[in-house]
């Protein structure tokens, strides 16, 4: 059934709010605000009671699916369990009711947390210094590339180095971030093992390259064994290496981007370090860099002097600011709590178990679905629907059928180099029983594809709405509610 919008529940005169009475002498409008500054037409916000409001959004929440509802194997998104204790900690008044411009001596705890979190992120990545300012992964990418640009400019090389190399398997944010950093994007092909094709790489690398962006393991879930050689090729040409940390969950405690030869990386704290995705954000795209890039980090930088923590704005070579204030602090609180609760051994176990889980599902599904790259995967893997396509069943049909069976779907149609791709990332927090149930569902769907394709083609059947018409939505966009004409 269709669910009314909050606006459709509005009734003039009803209210949920309560505000204090005005306790200062009231001044008439013209005395305080000139007529030209006043709003003519009031904003039609809904008028509802508090109980209506609560029921409306509670109902909406029940039409939503999160990690707490069930398995969420969305590749490249690391939908692991979000520990409750971290939510409690992040809700402490000491982390919420503080203003970013309070004097430093009144926010020593917040600054200490940021400093320590930054140090932890450097240790985990093998880097020298961190900045917590970027708000999300893509924001971290953009910031990291700006540092690379500033580095080349500082060497008088800025005008010459105009290209950023991005593998064809990369996340869409990589080329987009490079473009928004003013770079020309050069795509490099993948080889038959799913890694960067070294010959193609050598062809495109020259003295006009500013950087190579690499996700390793990549979006196929495969670790690029040639990473040392790749780094050498790029560095020899004077370029720098950017590490997209979206897939850090596969390697924490096992191998570090800094040791692989990367010069800068971003973390998705909301992936690797368990902070919830909030339906699409907020995240934290903290970056960490090698020493050569530290002069260019955004301001302010949190520093420790003796027992005192300070915000240093005096960094003459800094790129400036990429965001207001210091970043998504409340997300940092949760990510830091996670790192400190797990410790070194716990973090390594995260990577090991994430990889174990992914390989287990992959091996159990390979009889039923085509596996384009048959190697040990890391934390995720890609299968495709080429076998099911023979019966007219597409990846999207399989995804929708999974919804009917109570699971979230994998990431679909990505990476772009695999037709009908399904990218499956189970994460380490899922038990063997959960994985088995998902595997059974996938097998059931593979069998249905052969016998009752139409059931899949019309899925989902058990959700609050059926498959939605995305073509009409894009052709005739309705992007806001408008009151019915009277």
């Amino acid at each position, binding site marked *: 059934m269709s669910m009314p*919008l909050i606006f459709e529940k509005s009734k003039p005169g009803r209210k*949920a709010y309560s505000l204090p009475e005005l306790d200062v002498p009231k001044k008439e409008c013209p005395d305080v605000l000139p007529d030209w500054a006043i709003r003519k037409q009031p904003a039609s916000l809904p008028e509802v009671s508090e109980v209506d409001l609560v029921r409306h959004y509670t109902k909406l929440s029940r*039409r939503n699916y999160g990690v707490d509802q069930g398995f969420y194997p969305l590749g490249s998104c690391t939908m692991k369990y*979000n520990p409750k204790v971290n939510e409690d*900690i992040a809700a402490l008044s000491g982390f*919420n009711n503080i203003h970013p411009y309070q004097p430093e001596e009144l926010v020593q705890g917040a600054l200490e947390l940021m400093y320590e979190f930054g140090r932890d992120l450097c240790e985990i990545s093998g880097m020298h210094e961190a900045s917590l300012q970027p708000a999300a992964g893509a924001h971290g990418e953009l910031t990291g590339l700006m540092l690379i640009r500033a580095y080349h400019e500082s060497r008088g090389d800025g005008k010459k180095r105009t290209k950023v190399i991005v593998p064809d398997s990369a996340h869409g944010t990589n080329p987009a971030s490079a473009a928004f950093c003013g770079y020309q994007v050069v795509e490099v092909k993948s080889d038959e093992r799913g890694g960067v094709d070294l010959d193609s790489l050598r062809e495109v690398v020259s003295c006009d390259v500013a950087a190579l962006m690499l996700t390793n393991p990549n979006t196929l879930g495969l670790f690029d064994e040639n990473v040392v050689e790749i780094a050498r090729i790029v560095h020899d040409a004077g370029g720098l290496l950017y590490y997209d940390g979206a897939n850090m969950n596969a390697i924490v405690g096992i191998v570090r981007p800094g040791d692989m030869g990367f010069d800068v990386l971003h973390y998705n704290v909301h992936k690797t370090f368990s902070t919830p995705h909030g339906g699409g954000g*907020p995240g934290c795209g903290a970056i960490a860099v090698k020493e050569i890039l530290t002069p260019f980090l955004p301001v302010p930088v949190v520093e420790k002097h003796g027992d005192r923590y300070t915000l240093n704005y005096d960094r003459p070579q800094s790129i400036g600011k990429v965001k207001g204030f210091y970043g998504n602090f409340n997300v940092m609180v949760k990510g830091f709590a996670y790192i400190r609760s797990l410790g070194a051994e716990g973090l390594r176990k995260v990577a090991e178990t994430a990889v174990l889980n992914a390989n287990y599902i992959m091996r159990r599904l390979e009889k039923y679905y085509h596996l384009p790259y048959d190697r040990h995967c890391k934390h995720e893997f890609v299968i495709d629907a080429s076998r099911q396509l023979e019966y007219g069943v597409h990846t999207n049909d399989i995804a929708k059928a999974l919804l009917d069976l109570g699971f979230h779907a994998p990431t679909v149609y990505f990476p772009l180099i695999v037709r009908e791709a399904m990218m499956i990332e189970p994460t380490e927090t899922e038990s063997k029983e959960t994985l088995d149930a998902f595997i059974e569902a996938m097998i059931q769907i593979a069998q249905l594809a052969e016998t009752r394709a139409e059931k899949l083609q019309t899925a989902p059947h058990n*959700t609050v709405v059926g498959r939605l018409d995305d073509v009409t939505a894009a052709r005739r966009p309705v992007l806001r509610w408008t009151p019915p004409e009277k």
Partner: protein
Amino acid sequence: MNYVPHTSEDRSEMLKVIGVSSIDELFSDVPSEVKLHRELNLPAAMSEFELIKYMSGLAGKNTTTDNMVSFLGAGVYDHYVPSVVKHIISRSEFYTSYTPYQAEISQGMLQSIFEYQTLMCELTAMDISNASLYDGATAIAEAAMMASRLTRKQEVIISRAVHPDYRRTLRTYAHNLELNVIEVPFKHGATDIEALRDLVSDETACVILQSPNFFGCIENMALAAEVAHGEKALFVACVDPISLGILAPPGEYGADIAVGEGQGLGIPMGFGGPHLGFLTCRKEHLRQMPGRVAGETHDSQGRRGYLLTLQAREQHIRRDRATSNICSNQALCALAATVYLSWLGKQGIKEVAELCVQKAHYACEKLSLIPGFEQKHEAPFFKEFVVKTPLKPEELCADLLEANILGGLPLGRFYSDLSDSILVAVTEKRTKEEIDTLCRALEGLV
């Protein structure tokens, strides 16, 4: 502590299915020369209780506004956050979900985004809204880049009375795209429109003004928009959404793009983030709008539903030709704003704005009566104003801390020409008594 559910039996069964004898074998493709052959150097793991104790210790080292009366604003405000907001955004169906890519099981989030978009359109009186951006600073940068794409021009004019962090962020972004950022001076607290008129030309992509501006002053946005449009430049309005309960919205004065910081809409100050960037615009600019957007549609049975639409603008489809690189946004903060605005409703938003205006004007008048203090700017203001002080502002604010008062923001670090002044913010939470206490404390200091 650990959230891995595997027993050793599970592990060996799984390894057997995979056909390897150890987990290490699964990492055999990582070259040994780069592997970390030691444990990470991190402090020892903590149990849940130890963690709470440690983290509460850190939280306890911060002095909160629970224990101080705050007159600090400057882009982050101590507005009241109603209980319902916290309860709704704590529903784990919302906060543990990802971006709603699978629409049929994400109707809750998608409908709330659609409601958010409607609310932001209503509030700003604009046609369309995206699903959120990171914050006010990056929203300005996105708006400037959007205007540059729309006009195919490289010059951005921004008032010097726009928040310093926003301008600095804009300059960082602009540098890479070779956008030329020009600042217009202010006079008596508001943008110098004559100076603006001299600067705007047919090279200008957009003019950006903030109202109320960094000093709390209300700008003559209609006039600025007219000046911009006179040279076919777009006009970008950066606004405080709370102010729109009473002040003219961007749509009423001809703005092409409206942006701003939505922290005041039910989001804690939280040391500066996560907050909420918003962007609304005219519908003819839809295809160049950055960020996600939810749209209404139907299923095969005619049931109304919502999904992420117009994704051909976005990075995962368009890659290096996308309208922005943004992927994750501030969805949960947008949900907070949605609940907050629905809690306030049509009357409440007016009342909050009215309370801010009245209390801020009372405070300004009382402060100006103290010998040596005077209101710096003559332009009309909303909930924030600049006061010239007879003592060094930094020392004054430090002294006020003794009385548990966060007295405002000394402006010298942002504007050397205002090093004798503080910026004072008064929200609906401040009482007459608190304002009087501030004044008495100041009287005691001079």
